[in-house]
Each structure stands twice: as C-alpha cells, then as structure tokens.
C-alpha cells in the first residue's frame, strides 16, 4: 500500500511540475512579415523593396556629380551636378505616393509605389515581395530645339515608367531583387529611337554592419537599342545615422531618374567616365496621437 501511495504521489508530483511556461508558449501563429530588406527606398539608383513607413513623409535628395574623368581639375566632377528630389508619403504598410523633380530635362514626376505581395513567415509563407512602381513623367523644358517643327503638344512631354520589383530578403544581411521595367516615351526624336523600352534590372545589398551595407544595381535592355547604348550600373554603400539614410555611389549614368539611368547611361569604366553621387533621405513622422503607439 505504501508503495502505491508513493507511486501515485510521485505521479501527481510529475503533473505538478509541467512547465507553466508552455501555457503561453503555444501561441496562435500569426503572419510574420519580413521587414527591413533595405535601409532606403532606393538601392543605389534602382527602387528597393521599401516604401516610406506608414504616416511618414520622406524627403529624398538624389545628387549626382559630373564625370570623374578630369580628376582634380574639377575635383572628380563635383563642380557640376544634376539633382532629383522627391517627397513621398506612406499611407499605410503597402501604399505610397510621391512627387519628384529632376533637373535633367526638367522632368516633374508623380509616382505610386505599392506592395502587391509581402514576404512573410508564420501563418502565411510568402517567399518574395512584389512591388509595383508606376511613374508619370512630364518634361517641362522649353519647346525642343531638336525638332523645331514639332507641335508642342502636352502629350509629347509625357513618359511612363512601370516597374515590378520582385525581391527577397534572404537573411539579415542579403537582399536581392529583379526589376522588370517598361518605359514608354510619347515622343522620340529619331526614327531608330523606340517609344517602348523593356529592360530587366538586378539589384541587391549586403549588410556589413548593422549600419553599413554595400549596394548595387545593374540593368540590361530587352530588345535592341541604339549603337552607343550602355547598360547602366551603380555600386555604392548605405550609411545610416539617427534619422538619415546616406547612400554614396558611383555609376555610369548621371541621371538619378528611371528614364535617365536605365535608358541614358553614357559612362564607361575604360575612359573613367563615371559619376559620383549620393542619396540622402530624411523621414518626417506625421503620426498624431495614436492609441496603438506613442
């Protein structure tokens, strides 16, 4: 009898010892979105998988110097600059609208950038993120001297950029993306020049420390281009400080706008016609009193 007592007693003791912690450890699985694939909304030239955070207004300056080929005479091109800046606003986790202006060709552009699919783990496993970047550009230069006979219709000044950004954050350091791109120009000046231009971009980043990463992007055309066409590339780094992301790069394209870097790269490593540039972005939080956060 004593035996039985001991057995049952030790048995009950075992039950009493089951881990209290297990009761809260079996939480229901939720969708766990993979975030922060890139530090900025651009990789170097190319669009990244990021959009401005919800209720955040982002101001970005894309500054590109002249070619470095003259060395110290013009301090590696820093005497000259072209610039694009834009404001973009994140309405929620997946949708942003923006407004930009490039000094090159005096192009104003309005754009939307939206996440169609978000990479996730947990309750839903999604291996990639897919974003759409859609941009309407308006050239506002004076009537073209290239084609003085041409009527100055507003529609002649328009161009359209549509791009899918398909990417994946493979681990905390490595993120890669593909960028199928379609650019339509309403007006072309030469017969060989095409209205519709397809290309495919590759871009990625590798994080060296939590605040520093090496980034690069490269575009190849699909279909024929004119003889002097160059595939655009940019390589650079991200440096993150408190409220800024600072990106420095070198590229064979001077213009930081999609049309100008994908379709109008003119530099070459062999004659060191390359362009230094930087992007700097500042985020302004427009979040008011929100019960879910402080």
């Amino acid at each position, binding site marked *: 009898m004593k035996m039985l007592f001991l057995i049952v007693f030790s048995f009950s003791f075992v*039950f009493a010892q089951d881990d209290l912690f297990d009761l809260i450890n079996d939480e229901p699985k939720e969708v766990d979105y993979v975030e922060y694939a890139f530090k900025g909304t651009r990789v170097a030239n190319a669009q990244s998988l990021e959009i401005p955070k919800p209720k955040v207004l982002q101001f970005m300056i894309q500054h590109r110097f002249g070619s470095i080929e003259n060395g110290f005479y013009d301090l590696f091109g820093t005497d000259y600059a072209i610039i694009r800046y834009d404001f973009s606003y994140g309405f929620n986790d997946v949708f942003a609208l923006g407004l930009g202006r490039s000094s090159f060709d005096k192009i104003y552009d309005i754009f939307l950038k939206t996440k169609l699919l978000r990479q996730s783990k947990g309750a839903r496993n999604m291996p990639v993120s897919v974003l759409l970047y859609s941009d309407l550009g308006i050239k506002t230069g004076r009537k073209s001297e290239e084609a003085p006979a041409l009527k100055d219709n507003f529609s002649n000044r328009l161009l359209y950029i549509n791009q899918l950004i398909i990417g994946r954050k493979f681990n905390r350091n490595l993120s890669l993306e593909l960028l199928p791109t379609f650019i339509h120009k309403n007006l072309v000046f030469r017969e060989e020049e095409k209205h519709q231009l397809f290309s495919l971009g590759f871009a990625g980043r590798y994080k060296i420390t939590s605040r520093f990463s090496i980034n690069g992007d490269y575009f190849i055309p699909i279909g024929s281009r004119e003889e002097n066409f160059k595939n655009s590339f940019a390589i650079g780094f991200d440096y993150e400080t408190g409220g800024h992301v600072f990106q420095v790069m070198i590229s064979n394209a001077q213009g930081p706008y999609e049309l100008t870097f994908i379709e109008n790269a003119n530099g070459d490593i062999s004659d060191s016609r390359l362009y230094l540039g930087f992007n700097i972005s500042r985020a302004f939080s427009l979040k008011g009193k929100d019960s879910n956060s402080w």
Partner: protein
Amino acid sequence: MMSNHKNILIILFTLLSFSFAKERYITREGVISFFSSTPLEDIKAINKQVSCVLDKGTGEFAFQLPIKGFTFKNALMQEHFNESYLESDIYPKSVFKGKILDWNTIQLSENPTEVIIEGELTIHGIKQKIKEPGKIWLSSKSIIGESNFNVKLVDYNIKVPKVVRSNIAEVINVDVSVQLNPR
C-alpha cells in the same frame, strides 16, 4: 482494514485532483512599455501583445512577448530598435520565468499588495537573474499585476553606437501591467 484502504485512496485521489485542479490565471493582452530619457530625447515604446501566466497555487509565473510587438511613434526608431539594437530577427522573443517571493504569506485582496518578484529575464538572448518589486491585487474575477523596474542595456549586450549615445539612455525604465483571468 477495508476502511483504512478507503481512507488512503481518498487521500490519494484528493492529492491527485489537487495537483490537476490548478488555479492558473492567464492573459495574452498584457502591456509592457519602456521609457528612455536623456536630456536630448525621450523615447517610448509600447507592446500590447504580452502573454503572462500565473499559478495561483505556487506564485510561479511566466512572461513572453514578441520584440516586434513594440510600437514607437517614430517608425525609423522602431526599425533601429528591431534591426540594430534588439536584433528581433535573431532574438524574436523576450521571456521571464520566476516567482513571487513569500507567496504563502500573501493574502490577495482588492488593495494592491507590495511583493518581490524573483526570476530570470531573457532579453536579446541573454538571461539575467532579477529581483524587482511589484504589486498584485484582485479585481472581480481577475488578478492584476504591475511592476516597474530598470534594465541596463549592457547587461543584455545591447550596443548603442557612439553617434546616438547621447540620445539613448544606458538604463531603460520598464513598466509592466497585466490583467490575468482564470484559465
């Protein structure tokens, strides 16, 4: 002889049922917030996805919370918090396991009772023994617990870079509040 057996059996079953019928109190909607204060900047974040369970029989309890559940007013701070400081992709959860000291002598009532909590707190993958004050009281069917204590970043190997060292305090004040309901 027979009645003796019966008695023993009754005792056994009472013991057994006693060990089964545990009074566990639980929540998945607890709140933990923290506050970092420096002359330059005050930083706050709040997490409303805190799970907590208390064994009313023994005074043992446990906490678990997802690090990604902390929301900041400034989204960029939230990114830095997850990416650079807490590394939530590697250490997604923070956990506490411990007990309320002298539980047997504590009479729960509607008035807050000061208690001492002792246990192991895991943040950023590093486990530290802590002993901190708290309060506990009853509110209709619930048990309410609160605690406020300080966490030193170095204890949990949370590194703050020089450029923002004057913006982020070395000691963070943590506030815990849970309303536990019978399971």
